[in-house]
C-alpha cells in the first residue's frame, strides 16, 4: 500500500505545518519567561511538550483516517491533532487559554478536544488507551466501519493500562490500532532502562494481535504499515499494535536541560530530520518542483501565523466561566 502523489504531498504539507506550528509555539511560550524561566508567566503558562521530529508518526497514520475515526493522544499531541484535522484556530486559542478555544480555555495544551474530528488527548500516561477501545467498540456496535487509534509513547507500554487495553481490545475484537511513538525516552529515563524487551511490538503476540515495528522515522514506511492495520480493523479483523522508531528533537518539556542525553545525540538526530528527507524524496521523484515546494512552505507558514494571530486577538474568558460545563445539562429524551 504505497502513498499516491497526492497523499505524499498531503503528508509533506502536514509535517511542514506541524513543525512550523511547534517552532512558532515555542517562541510564544517563551514570551515572558526570560530572563527567569517561570512556568506561570507569559501568554502560555504551564508545561509545553513539543513534537518536533515525531511528525512522521502522525501523518503516516492519519493519512488513512476519516473525521469519524476516533483518535486519543497524549501530553505531546499537536502533530497528531494537526494531522487529524483539528481546527487550528480553535486549537491555538485553546493553547493560549482563550474563550474561543476548543474548550473555552479550560483544558489547555494537554487536554484538547475536537468532537468534529473525534480527537481527544489527556495527560496521564496510558490512560487514553482504554477510551480508544471503547470508541472502537461503539463504532462496531453501530455497524460502522470507523476505527479508533490510540497514540502513546514507548514509556506507556510499561503501564498497566497498556496491557489491559490490548487484551481487552483483542477479546472484544475491537477495531482499534495502538500506535507507539518510540522516541526512546520517558522524560530522563531511556527505554533500555525501563523496558524488559528491546522492542515493544513483540508484546502484541502476548495479546493475540499482530505487531509491527517501523524503523527510521520514515513517514512512507509508517503509511504502509498503518494502512494495513487500519484496513484490518475496518474489515472487522480486530486490533493491531504498531511501534514507530521516531525521535524527539526537543526536550521532554520546554525548559528541560536534557542533561541525560549523550553529547551529540540531538545533533545527530537533527541531521536525519524527517522533513528535509521527505522533501528531497519528493523533489527527486518529481512529485513537487522546487517552486511548488517553496510555495507550499510559504502557505503553511501563513496558515500557522494566521492561527496564532487569531488566538492572540481572541478574548480571554471571563473568570466566572470557570464554573461552566462541570456537568452537562439535560437528560436524553
Amino acid at each position, binding site marked *: 500500500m504505497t502513498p499516491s502523489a497526492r497523499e505524499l504531498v498531503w503528508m509533506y504539507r502536514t509535517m511542514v505545518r506541524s513543525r512550523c506550528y511547534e517552532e512558532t509555539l515555542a517562541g510564544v511560550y517563551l514570551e515572558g519567561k*526570560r*530572563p*527567569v524561566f517561570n512556568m506561570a508567566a507569559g501568554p502560555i503558562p504551564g508545561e509545553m511538550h513539543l513534537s518536533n521530529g515525531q511528525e512522521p508518526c502522525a501523518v503516516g497514520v492519519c493519512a488513512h483516517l476519516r473525521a469519524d475515526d476516533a483518535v486519543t493522544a497524549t501530553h505531546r499531541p499537536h502533530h497528531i491533532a494537526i494531522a487529524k484535522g483539528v481546527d487550528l484556530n480553535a486549537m491555538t486559542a485553546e493553547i493560549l487559554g482563550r474563550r474561543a478555544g476548543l474548550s473555552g480555555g479550560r483544558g489547555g495544551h494537554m487536554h484538547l478536544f475536537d468532537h468534529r474530528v473525534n480527537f481527544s488527548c489527556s495527560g496521564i500516561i496510558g490512560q487514553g488507551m482504554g477510551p480508544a477501545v471503547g470508541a472502537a467498540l461503539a463504532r462496531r456496535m453501530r455497524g460502522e466501519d470507523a476505527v479508533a487509534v490510540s497514540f502513546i509513547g514507548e514509556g506507556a507500554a510499561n503501564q498497566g493500562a497498556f496491557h489491559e487495553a490490548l487484551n481487552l481490545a483483542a477479546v472484544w475484537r475491537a477495531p482499534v490500532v495502538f500506535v507507539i511513538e518510540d522516541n526512546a525516552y520517558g522524560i530522563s529515563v531511556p527505554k533500555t532502562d525501563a523496558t524488559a524487551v528491546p522492542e515493544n511490538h513483540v508484546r502484541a503476540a502476548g495479546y493475540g494481535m499482530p505487531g509491527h515495528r517501523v524503523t527510521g522515522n520514515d513517514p512512507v514506511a509508517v503509511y504502509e504499515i498503518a494502512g494495513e492495520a487500519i484496513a484490518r480493523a475496518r474489515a472487522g479483523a480486530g486490533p493491531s499494535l504498531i511501534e514507530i522508531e521516531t525521535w524527539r528533537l526537543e*526536550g521532554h518539556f520546554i*525548559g528541560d536541560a*536534557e542533561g541525560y542525553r549523550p553529547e551529540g545525540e540531538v545533533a545527530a538526530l537533527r541531521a536525519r530530520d524527517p522533513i528535509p528527507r521527505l522533501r528531497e524524496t519528493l523533489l527527486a521523484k518529481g512529485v513537487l518542483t522546487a517552486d511548488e515546494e517553496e510555495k507550499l512552505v510559504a502557505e503553511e507558514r501563513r496558515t500557522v501565523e494566521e492561527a496564532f494571530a487569531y488566538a492572540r486577538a481572541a478574548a480571554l474568558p471571563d473568570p466566572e466561566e470557570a464554573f461552566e460545563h462541570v456537568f452537562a445539562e439535560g437528560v436524553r429524551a
Partner: protein
Amino acid sequence: MSGTPLAVPHDQWQDDEECVVMWLYEDGDAVAEGTVVCELAVAKVDIELPSPAAGVLRILVPEETPVRKGDVIAVIEDGRTS
C-alpha cells in the same frame, strides 16, 4: 567595599548565555564559607554558588537580573578564608 568577591563562575556556560540570580539569603546576613548563598538559573539548569568566605553578605545584583560569567554579584565583607 573590602571583602571576598563572589563572581559568576567561568567554566559552565557558553559565551552568550544569560543567567539570573535567586538569593537564598538577604543583604546583611552572616554567612559561612561554603554555604550556598544563591542559585543561578540558566534557562534550563540551576547552578548553586557557595560563599567563598565567612562574613557578611553584600548583594550587588538583585534577583531576576541577567548576568554574564565573570560578573561580581556579591561581596563577602570581612571575609576570612580559613
